[in-house]
């Protein structure tokens, strides 16, 4: 922020400074307002168009739902619940599965990624196998987990963890590989032990990559939990979607989709906060300093 103000104020002399800064601020505010206007108009066109087309019968609302119907269904779900009980319990079940899977996948991905990134031998031995496993459509593993562990929470957690693992693993691995060789040489000359290098050099360097992967990883954790629930469950948002599908209730599917989107956005926001904290040392991205 300080760079912005100094840059903008530098060429202006003496008393003209406050007005120049005010003008610059106005310009930034105007740009932001225009952006918001654009966003709201776009949303109005898409949702309004959907509503209009279904009302006029150009698109059949029996198959494709209707925004007002979705809103009504949403209220219903939260107030009355589903035939299996409270909607809140469904949400909690899915969030819980996704969260545990996310943590499990992230931790194992980071550990394996760093271990393999460190050791040329290990990565040489395991590299081809990891490529093979990565090529398999892992979502199918859900069926295996279901057969092995029944329709409880465990298979969903495992499926979410597997999906998360590979994303985090590849990023952690790459992050270790991208460590600046100069920094590494410097730490060695200064007398760092193998462990000290991991702690002070490798892990912080890989953290940039790992955290970047967490954004998409949580989305995958939710997908893992949902798919697991669709395959077979007694509780959860995946089950709500499956039931709505069986009842030809597109509004129910869309309503649950909205809820899931809100959950993922919330998680995204939290991960963004975490990123901001852990990576405070990074220079601000060029887009964060607005040019005037």
């Amino acid at each position, binding site marked *: 922020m300080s760079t912005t103000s100094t840059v903008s104020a530098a060429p202006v002399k003496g008393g003209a400074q406050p007005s120049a800064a005010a003008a610059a601020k106005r310009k930034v505010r105007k740009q932001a307002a225009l952006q918001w206007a654009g966003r709201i108009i776009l949303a109005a066109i898409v949702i309004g168009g959907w509503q209009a087309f279904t009302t006029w019968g150009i698109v059949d609302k029996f198959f494709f739902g209707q925004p007002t119907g979705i809103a009504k269904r949403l209220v219903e779900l939260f107030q009355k619940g589903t035939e299996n009980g409270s909607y809140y319990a469904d949400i909690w079940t899915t969030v819980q599965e996704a969260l545990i899977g996310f943590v499990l996948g992230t931790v194992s991905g980071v550990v394996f990624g760093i271990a393999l990134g460190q050791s040329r031998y290990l990565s040489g031995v395991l590299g081809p196998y990891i490529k093979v496993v990565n090529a398999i459509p892992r979502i199918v593993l859900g069926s295996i987990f279901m057969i092995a562990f029944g329709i409880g929470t465990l298979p969903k957690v495992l499926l979410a963890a597997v999906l998360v693992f590979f994303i985090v693993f590849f990023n952690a691995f790459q992050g270790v590989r991208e460590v600046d060789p100069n920094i590494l040489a410097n730490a060695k*000359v*200064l007398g760092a032990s193998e462990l000290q290098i991991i702690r002070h050099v490798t892990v912080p360097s890989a953290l940039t990559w790992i955290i970047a992967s967490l954004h998409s990883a949580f989305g995958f954790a939710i997908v893992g939990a949902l798919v697991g629930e669709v395959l077979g469950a007694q509780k959860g948002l995946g089950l709500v979607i499956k039931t709505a599908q069986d009842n030809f209730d597109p509004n129910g599917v869309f309503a649950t989709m909205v809820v899931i989107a809100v959950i993922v956005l919330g998680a995204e926001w939290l991960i963004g906060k975490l990123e901001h904290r852990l990576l405070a040392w990074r220079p601000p991205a060029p887009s964060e300093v607005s040019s005037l």
Partner: protein
Amino acid sequence: MASRNDAAVSPVAEKVGQDSARVEISGLTKRFLTPAGEVFTALQDVSFTVEPGQFCAVVGPTGCGKSTTLSMVSGLDRPSEGSVKVGGREVDGVTDGVSFMFQADALLPWKTVLGNVLMGPIFRGVPKQKAQASARDWLRRVGLTGFEDRYPHQLSGGMRKRVAMAAALINEPRILIMDEPFGALDVQTKAIMSNELLGLWEQIRPSVIFITHDLDEAVALADRVVVMTSGPGSVKAVFDIDLPRPRGSVQEIRFQPRFIELQHQIWDSLREEVERAYARTAGGTA
């Protein structure tokens, strides 16, 4: 001039007298296997000695294996033939008491200025409080008091070099290896940094091996200048620089007649090599 020189040397004489800081490079040869499967000889039979407490500059055309030599002195790399001895002991693995200053930034971007300078003592297991006190002291010596909590990206290029200098000197190394440390700086900053380096070097007086492309810099700073040939790298000539110390400002010494004379001598020796190296790379790309 001569009497001033003596006075300056005597307080550090006992430290200089330690043979543990002598670097003997003898018959050093390094070959690499290229990805195409050919053997490439980067260094061929390189020999020179750096006396304890001596400031030795190495000049030579691009690609003559200067940096390769340094990585073997520091123990980061091993020679194919020949040996490097530090204080009479052959280098085998990272040598204790050696610090390295690189051309590129080797600061940890995720650590503050203080954290970066702390690295050396912490890796050596110095208690945290003692390490912090000495890190603050070194930051003061390089003129960075008040910048302890900044991150490297918040500093200018010259300031980052000061941090790197403090980080390299905090362990009070016997040997300081510098690979074009000021190569990326502008001319004015470079001159200031050279003066500060000389000042700090005179305080703790390690043996220095200093790689540079800048002949003026080499003559102004060093006691001994080693000229290397390229392809494969070997030592062409060694010049002893008898300009008295302390030399004062790097900018002013270059107008002294003796400086100009030495600079000419070394340049005559170096020019041939630079031209040959240039002809080869230019021919290679044409």
